[in-house]
């Protein structure tokens, strides 16, 4: 029912694309990150929590239709529904069924409940399109509680030394998690403009999240250490961070599992905190769908597809997509909003 072409993942029967990277007529968007929600299509369909974020990204005037999780929409006989992916607020797996054949496109996902995004739900299907960002056995993320304890301990250590704690994570998704952790301390909390914008929008949309102050130059002049700042990766290494001296910086990402990823950013600290599934989560998710056919997209697709073929005897193939071939690059360039 689905094919992969140069514009994206295509459903001919319903004449629509999922996360297309070129302008099309009808686009279903799994979540509001830049590499999945691209500009220029005529009609967008997404989860209701993504509407506001999509407008923030693509402009207010776009034609956007919303579904809640589990709600069904039928287009030319194809039953379409969205299911929680647990990646970020509003992220969805797309389920399509037609004449008894069921496809699920995962978008980006993680299995562990981060307390902010609606937790992942496994959906049975015959064909599963999965991401593979962390599709190698070297990626075994610690439980979220362990990472957040480590972060809190680090903040406390900085506080005792009268140092500010600067935490780096992309603005939509990671930043909300970092703000929630930071809000457990008594310290004043500030954010880069990109982070503050999104947090404000999400709170206005009715999400129960702690508020955060924009770290404006005027405001920060009067602040005394220690406090906490949440910033996107793009602000790393710019003069923007200088006004927060004295500080310690920590980068929060699944990539921090590897020493090299931390060291080449010249970072002293990295915390493993991911919005993607690690190796075991991927294997759990793929096998739980019961799908015989698996299409592996962005990440270590060739390697992970081979593993699925050899270990689980699935019909797994790699699919080249134009979602960032390396999520690390995307974080470097801060292409996610």
């Amino acid at each position, binding site marked *: 029912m689905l094919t992969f072409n140069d514009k994206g993942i295509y459903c001919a029967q319903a004449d629509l694309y999922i996360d297309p990277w070129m302008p099309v007529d009808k686009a279903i968007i799994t979540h509001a990150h830049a590499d999945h929600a691209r500009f220029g299509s005529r009609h967008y369909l997404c989860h209701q929590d993504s509407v506001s974020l999509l407008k923030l990204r693509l402009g207010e005037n776009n034609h956007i239709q919303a579904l809640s999780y589990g709600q069904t929409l039928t287009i030319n006989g194809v039953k379409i529904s969205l299911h929680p992916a647990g990646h970020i607020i509003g992220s969805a797996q797309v389920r399509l069924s037609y004449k008894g054949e069921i496809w699920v496109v995962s978008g980006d996902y993680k299995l562990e409940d981060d307390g902010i995004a609606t937790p992942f739900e496994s959906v049975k299907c015959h064909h599963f399109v999965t991401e593979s960002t962390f599709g190698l*056995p*070297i990626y075994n993320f610690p439980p979220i509680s362990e990472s957040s304890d480590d972060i809190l301990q680090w903040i406390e250590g900085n506080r005792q030394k009268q140092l500010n704690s600067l935490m780096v994570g992309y603005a939509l998704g990671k930043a909300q998690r970092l703000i929630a952790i930071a809000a457990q301390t008594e310290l004043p909390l500030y954010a880069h403009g990109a982070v503050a914008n999104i947090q404000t929008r999400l709170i206005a949309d009715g999400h129960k999240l702690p508020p955060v102050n924009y770290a404006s130059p005027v405001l920060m002049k009067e602040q005394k250490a220690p406090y906490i700042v949440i910033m996107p990766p793009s602000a790393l290494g710019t003069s923007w961070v200088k006004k927060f001296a004295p500080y310690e910086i920590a980068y929060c990402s699944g990539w921090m599992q590897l020493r090299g990823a931390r*060291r*080449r950013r010249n970072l002293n600290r990295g915390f493993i905190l991911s919005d993607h599934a690690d190796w075991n989560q991927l294997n759990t998710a793929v096998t739980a769908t019961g799908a015989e056919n698996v299409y592996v997209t962005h990440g270590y697709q060739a390697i992970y597809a081979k593993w699925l073929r*050899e270990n689980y005897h699935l019909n797994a193939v790699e699919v080249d997509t134009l979602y960032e071939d*390396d999520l690390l690059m995307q974080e470097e360039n801060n292409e996610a909003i």
Partner: protein
Amino acid sequence: MKQFNSLFQQIDQTTSTNAKVNALIDYFKQAAPADALWCIYLLIGKSTGRFIKTALLRQATIRLALLPPWLFEESYHVVGDLAETIALCLPPPTNEKACTLSQTMAFLNSLSTLTDEQAVAAISERWLEIPADERFVFNKLITGNFRMGVSKQLVIKALANTYNKSENEIAHRLMGNWHPTSTAINQLLIDDLLQEKSFEPYPFFLAYPLENTPESLGTIEDWFIERKYDGIRGQIIVRNGHSYIWSRGEDLLTDKFPEFAILTQLMPNGTVIDGEILPYKDGQVLSFALMQTRIGRKQLSKKFLETAPLVMICYDLLEYNGTDIRNLPLSERRQLLEKLLEELAATDAPLMLSETLPCQTWDEVRQEREKARDYRCEGVMLKRKSSSYEAGRRRGNWWKWKIDPYTVDGVLIYGQRGHGRRANLYTDYTFAVWDKEELVPFAKAYSGLTDKEIMEVDTWIKRNTIDKFGPVRSVIPTLVFELAFEGISASPRHKSGIALRFPRIVRWRRDKAAKEANTKTDLLDLLALNSDE
């Protein structure tokens, strides 16, 4: 191991020199003497070599982690570090046990007595006992050549602070051959120096590259100008009727250099000379490549001794008549050195004086630097006449001013995933020059680009790949880079027929198309200019 691991983490998580020194001092104060000795030994870069074949480590990991070998290899290419890959793949420990650093080192030393099968079993058992967060450091110890983010100088500083000694004394005490299993910490660091240490060299004084114009150094009258020779830096020591030759890397090379054995008879006891050892024949310095091949040999044939006889070009005297004279001004040390060499002039001693160049102005120094290659030298040395002989690499009194390297424009044809901080990025490049219509690889280079450029080239490689072979990708020949190198020699082992010494990237020539890169003929011309014939 817990303390040592925690020291590693503390040092890994800071860039502050003070924080690193304090972490070291804390460790030295708390650690048991046997552990502290091992820590010093490992941190000042004494090689422990490899304790077990890496193939066996891979085999043991694959068995424990239940992974297919190909998946482990793919993971290794992404991580770029074997010790780390193993630490990430292993299942959680089942039988945790605490173990000291010295016990760990004893365990690793015992591996060499085991058969392959026994070694795999022993290491697997040990892995399941080690807490997960200590495995990386443990694996780094197994794979040998352990490094932590501290220089030898910092370790010396921390020890000097811990034991209330001068840094120079600690530096000297740590020189030479000692081993944690046969040394007591008091003997190494605290007690009066014993006679047995008599063959140890002094810590070498190393120069920084000149950072400003030479004019910034003040008047030229205050400086000695010498050639910067291209050989092996070494100390010749004659004490108690024996002679020893130490390289800067603290290798005892006495046996490799039999030419100098004669000095035992010719020079008075209590003499230490610092200089450059290089091949020299018929009044001419020979190429460094000749000495390299000679050092590589286990057996020195007569032929080698004849074709590449060694001398030392002497430039400093550190000990004279049994007295440490490193604190005398260089001008006085040189006078004594000249006197010593004059007395030997009539003998066969393979020693020559490093002449000072009679430059009157800094511009004349510039000209001498430009002419360095005519003498097979790398540039000039600038040494303050009043300088004492310091320990380690220091700014201020000695500067090296090397000649600009050769450069060539090459086309990027292969990219390979890097290691360590470059892991998972295509950062190891192979470059080619044109041989008529064909591109022939001539050099590999890993360094020289900024982090931003590395990211950019990485993305470019991923999007312009022709073919993949394991961790290597061939790319559409497009990008041109200027490479610098120190020397060129003929090499039948390379497809291009030449080998470059220390090639590195100078800059990305975005202004050049692949067609405009250099040719093999250009390189062969350069080779002809530099050959010995």
